């Protein structure tokens, strides 16, 4: 059986499974559509949350980011997991007790302000829409590579599948499909990693292999990797090169942003009890950690494999791989496959029939190159995003592993897209239509409008996925910045303070978002129009603070403004103080279930 047929089988079987689950878990009421009838077991919800949270970025991009930078990109590992501590301790149990359907509904009720609710809805829709574009693009790329269809066809197939299970199943259908998608994506991520860890270190657990011994040389794996990459003129893998202040701020921004992303928060509305919400956050992190503890091993081992492959005969002092080898030897097949996608390329610049891979920006290497007659790095293109997808081929693993990875990448992108689309549709139907435009709408009417909103959101996301605005990549920073600077502080103050009033909360959110947006626009261009930026992330406005790290400062501005403005305006009404008190104790959460 050829690789194409294997990929088709794996992807086809996983899609059939998702559709089957959707038919079984069709939503009949708004409670089922928004919160799966609040009947989801905490472990099940944890697994669904993990799939919801881990997007194409976690699955496809993160290991590549770590592989080519090393220690400095540890921010992603700590930031994207540390946010769950904030979520579990500061938000999830109280929002479950509150017992409504959307994040903006809590902000509207707690700050007794329709304006606050609308501001929250706008932040939510902007953050979720920008995020969903990236997922749809990821679906197109994965299809394009593995099923050999063009980008457009791939994206349309993906959109049709999401449409089938998200529009009919709502939160209930999405929850159970996400459980299936989690199983597919975690197997797809860990199985190749286990094989590679066994090859390199003899340990079947990649997380242990990372700190274990490199079997071929007997040295510790990381020491071996450090030696190889420095020999090629790159930064030492395990050393700290990044600006420390920016690294701390970036990690904190990712943590706060994670805890403020609405599609993750709303998953905690689906469990039966407050105590379940606490457990469920823990289970979510268990399932996320399985991938996040594997990712740094995948990154380090892939970097080692690639470096050794380019210098198969005794490192940089020996002979580089020859063009002939790449063209004829089976173990270099992956390079030819990926060259076709345009994401990997090489060029024999000095015409010596060999491909020298080294850091041509390092001065020591320039001296060496001059001596040996090299005229620059000849592995001219290596897109970091191909690392995880190409990894099984690089390590020469069997065909079924490659098919599994294809299904896994799609599962990661589809599960996150469905969660985001659900957050968007419930904000539109519950907060805008029922909350503001037509409060008298019947349950049947609301359910219908939720489905229409979801369908429209899918069409818009597909259109934007097919015609990605030039700023698609930068907007991920925007999504995190918005969530960190607006939603997280508003929720936290709503629960932990009885001083913050309606004016304070609205002023805080608007100040937090505006300053964050302005800071991002100053560095990335106004509305992401190229060339309109006054600063760059290499030389930022405030010291070493990059625009991607600004979310934490935006959050601090939100907190400060909210406190100052609340101190100058009227204190909270008594019934809101009572609402805050009731959110703080779990008793009575069951009754909110049937509201």
């Amino acid at each position, binding site marked *: 059986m050829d690789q194409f047929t294997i990929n088709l089988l794996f992807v086809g079987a996983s899609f059939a499974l998702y559709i089957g689950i959707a038919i079984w878990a069709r939503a009949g009421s708004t409670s089922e559509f928004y919160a799966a009838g609040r009947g989801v077991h905490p472990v099940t919800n944890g697994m669904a949350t993990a799939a919801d949270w881990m997007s194409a970025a976690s699955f496809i991009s993160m290991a590549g980011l770590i592989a080519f930078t090393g220690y400095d990109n540890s921010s992603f590992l700590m930031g994207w997991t540390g946010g769950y501590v904030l979520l579990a301790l500061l938000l999830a149990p109280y929002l479950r007790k509150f017992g409504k359907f959307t994040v903006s509904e809590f902000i509207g009720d707690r700050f007794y302000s329709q304006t606050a609710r609308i501001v929250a809805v706008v932040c939510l829709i902007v953050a979720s829409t920008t995020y969903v574009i990236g997922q749809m693009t990821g679906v197109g790329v994965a299809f394009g590579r593995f099923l050999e269809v063009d980008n457009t066809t791939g994206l349309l197939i993906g959109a049709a599948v999401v449409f089938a299970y998200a529009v009919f199943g709502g939160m209930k259908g999405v929850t159970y499909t996400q459980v299936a998608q989690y199983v597919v994506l975690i197997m797809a991520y860990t199985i190749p990693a286990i094989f590679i860890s066994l090859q390199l270190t003899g340990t079947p657990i990649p997380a242990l292999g990372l700190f274990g011994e490199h079997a071929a040389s007997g040295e510790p794996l990381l020491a071996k990797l450090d030696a190889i990459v420095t020999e090629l003129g790159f930064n030492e893998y395990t050393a700290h090169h990044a600006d420390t202040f920016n690294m701390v701020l970036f*990690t904190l921004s990712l943590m706060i942003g994670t805890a403020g992303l609405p599609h993750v928060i709303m998953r905690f509305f689906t469990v039966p009890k407050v*105590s379940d919400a606490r457990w469920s956050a823990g289970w979510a992190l268990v399932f996320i950690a399985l991938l996040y503890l594997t990712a740094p091993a995948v990154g380090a081992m892939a970097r080692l494999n690639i470096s050794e492959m380019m210098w198969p005969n005794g490192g940089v002092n020996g002979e580089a791989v020859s063009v002939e080898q790449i063209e004829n030897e089976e173990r270099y097949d992956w390079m030819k496959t990926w060259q076709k996608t345009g994401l990997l390329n090489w060029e024999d610049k000095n015409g010596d029939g060999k491909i020298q891979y080294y850091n041509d920006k390092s001065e020591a290497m320039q001296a060496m190159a001059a001596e040996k007659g090299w005229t620059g790095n000849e592995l001219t293109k290596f897109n970091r995003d191909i690392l995880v997808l190409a990894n099984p081929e690089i390590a020469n693993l069997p065909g079924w592993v490659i098919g599994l990875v294809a299904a896994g990448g799609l599962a990661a992108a589809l599960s996150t897209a469905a969660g985001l689309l659900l957050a968007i549709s419930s904000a539109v139907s519950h907060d805008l239509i029922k909350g503001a435009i037509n409060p008298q709408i019947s349950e049947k009417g609301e359910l219908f409008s939720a489905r229409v909103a979801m369908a429209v959101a899918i069409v818009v996301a597909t259109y934007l996925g097919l015609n990605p605005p030039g700023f698609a990549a930068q907007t991920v920073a925007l999504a995190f910045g918005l969530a960190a600077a607006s939603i997280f502080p508003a929720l936290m103050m709503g629960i932990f303070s009885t001083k913050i009033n309606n004016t304070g909360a609205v002023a805080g959110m608007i100040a937090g978002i505006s300053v964050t947006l302005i800071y991002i626009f100053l560095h990335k261009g106004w509305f992401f129009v190229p060339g309109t930026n006054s600063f760059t992330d290499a030389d930022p406005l405030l010291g070493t603070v990059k625009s991607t790290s600004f979310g934490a400062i935006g959050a601090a501005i939100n907190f400060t403004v909210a406190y100052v403005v609340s101190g100058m305006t009227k204190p909270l009404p008594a019934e809101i103080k009572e609402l805050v008190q009731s959110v703080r104790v779990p008793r009575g959460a069951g009754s909110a279930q049937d509201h």
Partner: protein
Amino acid sequence: MADNSSNDAYWSANLRIIVISLIIWAIVSFGFGILLRPMLSGIAVGGTDLGFWFAQQGSIIVFLILIFNYAFRMNKLDREHGVDEE
């Protein structure tokens, strides 16, 4: 609902657990993983130092322990103060 003094005691006990947990949360990630890494550089772990381990593995494991510990303690505290869900 239980009387207010019991609710106040429950809330301050909750806040105490949160503050202690968040201090540990910050020490393992921002502390051991980044700022205090030079101080821990003498402790070797598998080809590198303890700070690298905390940044890429240790902090995630501690986060897990913190969340489960919080859930366990709070669910117990709910029952002690009579504010658990029947």
